[in-house]
């Protein structure tokens, strides 16, 4: 059988990708790890300090808090996003009139700039004129200082993060749902399965590769949380420290305090964390993900 010749052309096809582009990233990546072992000034002047940045990090209470917060966001956010987006995608997949309209509507948070999301939710959370305090006081609850109370701020951030990331996951899951062959549904209906059984015994297992993808992507996203916190909590306020994540602290150290080496060390730790957790997810996938 005649084929296009593989071998050389394989490399030829990936050449554009791996020449300029990825070399650039390898360079940047290595450079960054190198920065982590140095004190780096604003103009790039360096002094080698070995592991000093790292040992300082683990005695830095704000770093420890940022680390714990990052676990908080990811640990609660990812399960929430997965559950909500699966339910929403399943609902959206029903044949209900106005499909074009509601599908577009549900995707809107995914394409809204974090700057707009931050602005918007700052207003919704506003303790004096915010819609949320208005609604909960109608319901008879005490109004709260959503984004300045150190005890609440992380929860407020979490809600916004979930809201803004669910949309994107719904897009992915809808695509996954569409790929499930109708043969399975027909067979189940003939056997007299009800909606609940169909959902749990057919939809979920067949959707599991997509759910796995969603879990991976949202975990990576939550471990890198930056923009919502950065934009919603006024810099320098007490609450900012309480909401701080690894990446906001990275930004703070590297660009606000100009501690470039220290910042690089934070980014390396966040990278190690993401790799370790993603690796664990891949190991665990055999237990619940079904490939057909």
């Amino acid at each position, binding site marked *: 059988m005649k084929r296009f010749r593989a071998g050389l052309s394989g490399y030829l096809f990936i050449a554009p990708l791996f020449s300029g582009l990825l070399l650039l990233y390898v360079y940047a990546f290595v450079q960054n790890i190198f920065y982590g072992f140095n004190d780096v000034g604003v103009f790039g002047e360096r002094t080698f300090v070995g592991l000093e940045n790292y040992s300082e990090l683990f005695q830095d209470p704000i770093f420890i808090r940022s680390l714990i917060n990052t676990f908080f966001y990811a640990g609660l956010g990812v399960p929430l996003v997965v559950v909500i987006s699966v339910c929403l995608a399943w609902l959206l997949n029903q044949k209900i009139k106005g499909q074009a309209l509601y599908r577009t509507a549900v995707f809107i948070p995914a394409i809204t700039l974090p700057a707009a999301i931050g602005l918007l939710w700052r207003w919704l959370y506003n303790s004096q004129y915010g819609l949320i305090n208005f609604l909960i006081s109608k319901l008879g609850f005490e109004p709260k200082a959503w984004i300045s109370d150190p005890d609440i701020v992380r929860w407020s951030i979490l809600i916004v993060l979930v809201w803004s990331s669910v949309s994107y996951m719904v897009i992915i899951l809808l695509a996954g749902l569409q790929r499930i*062959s109708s043969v399975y549904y027909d067979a189940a209906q003939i056997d007299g399965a009800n909606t609940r059984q169909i959902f749990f015994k057919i939809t979920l297992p067949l959707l599991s590769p997509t759910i796995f993808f969603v879990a991976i992507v949202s975990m990576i996203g939550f471990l890198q949380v930056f923009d919502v916190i950065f934009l919603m909590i006024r810099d320098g306020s007490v609450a900012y420290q309480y909401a701080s994540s690894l990446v906001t602290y990275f930004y703070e150290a590297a660009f606000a305090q100009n501690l470039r080496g220290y910042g690089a060390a934070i980014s*390396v730790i966040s990278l190690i964390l993401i790799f370790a957790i993603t690796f664990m997810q891949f190991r665990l996938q055999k237990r619940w993900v079904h490939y057909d």
Partner: protein
Amino acid sequence: MTSTTTTKGVLSPRKKKASLPWSGLMFWIIIAIWMIPVAWLVLMSIRPSADILAGLEIIPSRITFDGYITFLSKDIWYGAYLNSLTYSTLNTVMSVTVALPAAYAFSRFSFAGDKHLFFWLLTNRMAPAAVFLLPFFNMYKAVGLFDTNLGVAIAHMLFNVPLAVWILEGFISGIPREVDETAAIDGYSLPRFFIKIFLPMIRSGIGVTAFFCFMFSWVELLIARTITSTEAKPISAAMTRTVTSGGLDWTLLSTAGVMTILPGILAIWFVRKYIAKGFALGRV
């Protein structure tokens, strides 16, 4: 591909589904709650700032389009908006162009180290932008890419190219190898086959990929903000820099917020049917 046509045929008799009579209503309620924040943003953009600060109103008592007029007439606003559009579009074109042949190679050829390369590519998606930001910042300053739209577009390829390869590989693997083989027998050269036959076949894949690339580049803040200052200032930076200054024009900021949703809505409207057809996300 075939599954979609059969889905339609089979789902229509299922329309009688008495199992979920309430789902229609419940569904719209959920959508409505989900949309409250966005509706709120639109409402804020047509209320005078003074009214916004005066207190909570569900229905605006006074309406103004000052926000939109200012946005479209002041170049710090529309200029920044155009910057964001420029680098997102540039990024989309470059990412898809680079990813297409690579995705084809990963799907069709086996060559030494292909599995490793593919996996390594995906790990680049895992790496936080923060890991690359400091070296990029210094490098850009050195080579003159700092504060340029091209610079932002290139930096965003970091996370978009791996994703593009991943999605496209899924689409390409969905097309039988026999197509390639037939073309080879018919005497097509590989590049000609690729452009004349193959690209049109995976155009929905290209559409979906372009959509994701555009979207991720459009909403990205950390990189775009850090490697620009004035010339290529993105709209998000224009919005945030106003947020931190003293007196805020809430109407104008909300207007900017609404304006930033528009390109995305347009993009979704166009790729909606491709997304609905379903796509594989490639192997994991």
